[in-house]
């Protein structure tokens, strides 16, 4: 190959073993500007994932032909949502008559919630819902509920109002610098206000940067839905078995 000995960056081989920001070099004592700007760009992406409102029209369009309903939590805006997790867990005063008018007695209702990453929901929610619905032939599925300023437990209010046996909340997880668009799913049997986190099953790290694929996540969720229907419960008693089904991926923290 090349006869001229080229200086090689010994860090480049080591970078294969970690995505940590190693071997950045120095400008005096400080980080070189290139590294500073890369960091700022990643932080900006993560912050935008938190603060950009969910484009509900686009999600609705992507969910077609499934029908949809829209609800809001009791948190009127993002700053309040971030300060008051309790408000994000409750339906607002004006959820509209839609929920009560919806067909009662569905087996499953999907709730698509913005959570802490609207970006994740924008990218991954509709494909994942479609992948699940395909696998749930024979199940009665309620219209998909799109929830704004929502935390996981908002699904309890929605599920109770719709009268569904199971609620699956697809929600944007807390963004990190390496992955700002990770989606999580929380499944709850007989949703009603006051359900504890230990009564839910969670699938996290659904994203395209080494996370769970839609197909794997849908397989996992549908397995949980079938088992939950059979055992009439969700939560810790389902937990051990599902972990064997698909390996957990590293990445974003679950949003609760």
């Amino acid at each position, binding site marked *: 190959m090349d006869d001229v000995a080229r200086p090689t960056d010994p860090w480049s081989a080591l970078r294969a073993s*970690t995505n940590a920001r190693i071997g950045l070099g120095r400008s005096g*004592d400080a980080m070189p500007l290139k590294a500073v700007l890369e960091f700022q760009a990643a*932080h900006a992406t993560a912050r935008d994932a938190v603060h950009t409102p969910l484009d509900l029209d686009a999600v609705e369009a992507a969910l077609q032909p499934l029908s949809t309903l829209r609800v809001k939590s009791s948190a009127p805006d993002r700053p309040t949502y971030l300060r008051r997790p309790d408000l994000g867990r409750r339906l607002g005063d004006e959820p509209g008559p839609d929920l009560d008018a919806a067909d009662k007695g569905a087996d499953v209702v999907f709730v698509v919630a913005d959570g802490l990453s609207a970006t994740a929901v924008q990218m991954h929610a509709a494909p994942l819902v479609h992948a699940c619905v395909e696998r749930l032939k024979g199940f009665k599925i309620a219209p998909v509920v799109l929830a704004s300023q929502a935390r996981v437990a908002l699904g309890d209010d929605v599920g109770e109002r719709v009268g569904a046996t199971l609620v699956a909340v697809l929600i944007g997880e*807390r963004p990190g610098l390496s992955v700002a668009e990770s989606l999580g799913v929380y499944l709850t049997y007989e949703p009603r206000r006051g359900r504890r986190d230990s009564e839910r099953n969670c699938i996290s790290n659904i994203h395209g940067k080494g996370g769970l694929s839609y197909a794997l996540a849908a397989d996992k969720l549908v397995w949980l839905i079938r088992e939950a229907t059979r055992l009439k419960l969700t939560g810790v008693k389902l937990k051990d078995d599902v972990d064997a089904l698909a390996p957990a991926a590293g990445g974003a923290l679950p949003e609760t």
Partner: protein
Amino acid sequence: MILRCDLGGQRYVFSDLKRLMAAASPRRSGDELAGLAAATDAERVAARIVLADLPLDTFLGEALVPYEDDEVTRLIVDGHDSEAFAAVSHLTVGGFRDWLLSHEADSDALSKLAPGLTPEMVAAVSKLMRNQDLISVARKCKVITAFRTTLGLPGRLGTRLQPNHPTDDLRGVAVSVLDGLLYGVGDAVIGINPATDNVPNAIALMEMLDGLRQQYDIPAQTCVLTHVTNAIEIMNRRAPVDLVFQSVAGSEAANRGFGVDLAVLTEAHEAALALKRGTVGQNVMYFETGQGAALSADAHHGVDQQTMETRAYAVARAYQPMIVNTVVGFIGPEYLYDGKQIIRAGLEDHFCGKLLGLPMGCDVCYTNHAEADQDDMDGLMTLLTTAGCTFLICVPGADDVMLNYQSLSFHDVLYLRSTLGVKAAPEFEAWLDRMGMVAPDGRIRELELKDPRISHMLAQASLVA
């Protein structure tokens, strides 16, 4: 006890001591979430005026969390040293603030006083102190601990090297450790948060870290931040445990949420002491705390989050820890909303820990849903180093790729050393010098990639794991 104040033509009445303490706290989202915060800025100041006139020994007679219900309260009350307290027992909370700032309250006086103080007294006085007061008094506190390095000596700043990895890949962890060592980081601890918290995984990480330490003959302590019950099991299996880690909080119920009580901490402490692995000291415990921990476990007993945090230090000090740190911005904006609240809380936690006699450090950090950025961290790390903080946590490039939050970078430590003149622990500094990493002017060299010292280390890193 009548707790009231007339201010600006309005009467403010506080129904009990808990409410007074909460109302006197600087504004923060966690107290607002709990419904405990002052409703207005004027009420907040009114509460401080009342608190200032309260005799300090009020806190000995009235428990904020009932003695019968809570083993942390029992630990505080039963362990109180009234002889040490005598020096300030005649003071009000406001008088105590003035005394702390006086020149009479020097390092020795503060060290002698520490066992006579309860967390509630310390939390109360902190609410009457501005940030500069928190800095200047903390700076006078001298708390020295030792294992393989000695921490807390004047003019020193320790660092935790935190080489986290999303899948605990041993080689990936080793590479981050080496990156940090090249910046002279790691004298407080080389400590990893495992992505998967179980015994075999923790042992694999411990053996790798211990192997690295021995290979380079580093005078440092390592730690895998696994649950304390795992650490006990791991010690039974004779794996190399230097420091035993546990997150702790300020009430029995909150600690139960972490899966611990005082008995299991005592068991772990005794087991770690029996290993006698320290060379220059035997402080073997590492605790983390953070404002909001008790509230998030619904175990705050109606007490404000800063007071609950300070009660966690009573738990920590019962075990003569090597290091303690608050994870100040980690718990999220529902507890500390923005850079201002995070900075204030970091200074409070450091001050309160130091006054109670703890080797207090800080994870200067924030999450992506908080209103904070690296500029705020620059401020807090500079303030804490000025305050004589025992150690700070650092990760490669300030980005923790496992826990998904931002802390300090290794570069930040170089900045603090050169700007504020603080050095690493003496044993570690001597090692850096032996490794040829210190320039004649005391700076950490930026070694050329082809330098045999760096190429040797990198080659070794590739061999590990």
